[in-house]
């Protein structure tokens, strides 16, 4: 009866493998919080303060949280209009031949390594910004925002396009039949109907933006300070971890895990909201 034995064994095995992804998620949460707790015990709420000077035992994460949020907001402000335009273009406007060229291009944009975006930002964009602002190397919130905008563009575009396509064609036909122009149809019928999908696209793009690391380290300047203008350098939560984990010990190391915990919670929150909204759209 060996094939029945194999059947039972296989069932057990794939079940164990099936829960692996969930287990990894739990393990990540456990490890990062466990390692971050000592910093909180030692520093209390000054862990969420504004001064990050490891050599003087000051570990305030707030500065980097502000850095991450500012860069992400700037990136979204730049990316959303372009991504929406692009999604409408792909879903409604583009002749099919152009669409066949544009879609693979947008897909390819997703696959390009983030260090390549960072490199182009460093080599092309930063000097340009240094010329305009007349200060520093050009590594700044603005450079980081632009690079990040290009990086989230494909995510926001493809999910928005998908939700525009999910609008039943009758809605569009009804509007057009009543004499609305194509733009009126898009603005008053398609966009409102696809709204929740577009919101989900933006939220999921935000999750990606907040988590981006290497490209940000390359173009943002990495000074742990509050940015006072878009030409000022700053540091992100992600960059803080990447730059310092290799040579940190004790409380410093624990504070970096606490940085990771803040990032983890932030991204989990954003993505959970995004997934819920996205699922509601699918229904």
């Amino acid at each position, binding site marked *: 009866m060996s094939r029945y034995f194999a059947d039972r064994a296989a069932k057990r095995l794939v079940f164990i493998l099936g829960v692996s992804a969930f287990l990894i998620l739990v393990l990540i949460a456990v490890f*990062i919080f466990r390692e971050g707790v000592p910093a909180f015990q030692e520093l209390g709420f000054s862990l969420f303060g504004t001064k990050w000077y490891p050599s003087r035992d000051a570990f305030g994460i707030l500065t980097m949280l502000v850095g991450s949020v500012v860069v992400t907001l700037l990136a979204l402000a730049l990316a959303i209009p372009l991504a929406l335009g692009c999604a409408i273009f792909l879903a409604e406007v583009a002749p099919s031949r152009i669409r066949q060229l544009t879609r693979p291009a947008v897909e390819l944009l997703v*696959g390009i390594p983030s260090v390549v975006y960072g490199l182009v930002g460093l080599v092309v964009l930063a000097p340009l910004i240094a010329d305009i602002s007349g200060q520093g190397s050009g590594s700044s919130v603005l450079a980081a925002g632009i690079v990040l905008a290009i990086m989230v563009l494909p995510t926001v575009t493809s999910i928005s396009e998908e939700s525009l396509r999910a609008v039943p064609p009758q809605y569009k036909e009804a509007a057009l039949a009543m004499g609305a122009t194509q733009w009126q149809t898009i603005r008053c019928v398609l966009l409102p109907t696809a709204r929740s999908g577009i919101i989900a696209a933006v939220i999921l793009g935000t*999750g990606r933006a907040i988590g981006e690391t290497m490209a940000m380290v390359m173009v943002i300047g990495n000074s742990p300070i509050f940015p006072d203008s878009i030409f000022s350098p700053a540091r992100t939560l992600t960059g803080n*971890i990447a730059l310092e984990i290799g040579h940190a010990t004790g409380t410093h190391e624990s504070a970096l895990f606490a940085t990771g915990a803040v990032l983890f919670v932030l991204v989990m929150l954003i993505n959970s909201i995004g997934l819920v909204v996205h699922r509601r759209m699918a229904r």
Partner: protein
Amino acid sequence: MRLSPKLTQRIAWGFIWAAGISAVVILLLIVVYVIARGLPVFGSEFFFSEPKGGISGEGGISSVFVSTIWLIATTMVILIPLGIGAAIYLAEYAPDNWLTRLIRYGVELLAGVPSIVFGLFGFAIFVMALNFSYSILAGALTLACLLLPFLIRSAEEAMKVVPRSYREAALALGATKWQMTKSVVLPAAIPGIITGIILCVGGVVAESACLYVTMGGSAGMPTSFFDGGRSLAVHVFYLAMETNALDKALATGAVLIVLILIINLITRWLAWRFRARMEGKA
């Protein structure tokens, strides 16, 4: 002043066309720029010598390329059984209950965890707790965790499009569920699964943050997966941040883009074949 519908239509169309075209132009500019600046550096010295370090970034990418191959191989050995097993469970075995919903939710959320958080996790568990130190193995284990949700998703997708009638025929012949899965569903789904695997290879090539904190970044030629190393993407970062050799960084970036392009074309071709096969037989 109100604009006439005709005028707003024109303005809106202009904007939408501009948005669509500028996305493509941005992509082309980035790709063309990196390749154009990188191409002059290509040559036997660049491809067949090791990086010599130092501020001027002398040397090539041979050891980095070898490290990348080691990393891909090690990651895949860990990732493939895990991912396909999990996908089999979700596609064939999972009952429709709270546990399955929880697992699926976990997969979705895991896919959104930032790379550097995986890096931190890998650093804590593989580098420190399990004492693999900075090594290709630690990097590969971390990457396998990172890529797992993507492989699960695409493998499950591939199994789901296998027609029901295949399964019914196998069961009607007296096959056990496992025999059906192993001998009917998996072979039919294999092109789709391979597409997913190749996409994950692309992920290994493109990933940098989680490797930067788990693989150490030594530039030497690796002799086993317990050695540290750096992948091509991490090498780009080191060149850009720690040397003056921006041209070498761009050339390495060009190698990355070419690799990603090749991977993209292969998956495209496979997906097209898979669709043709499923539609032809179903």
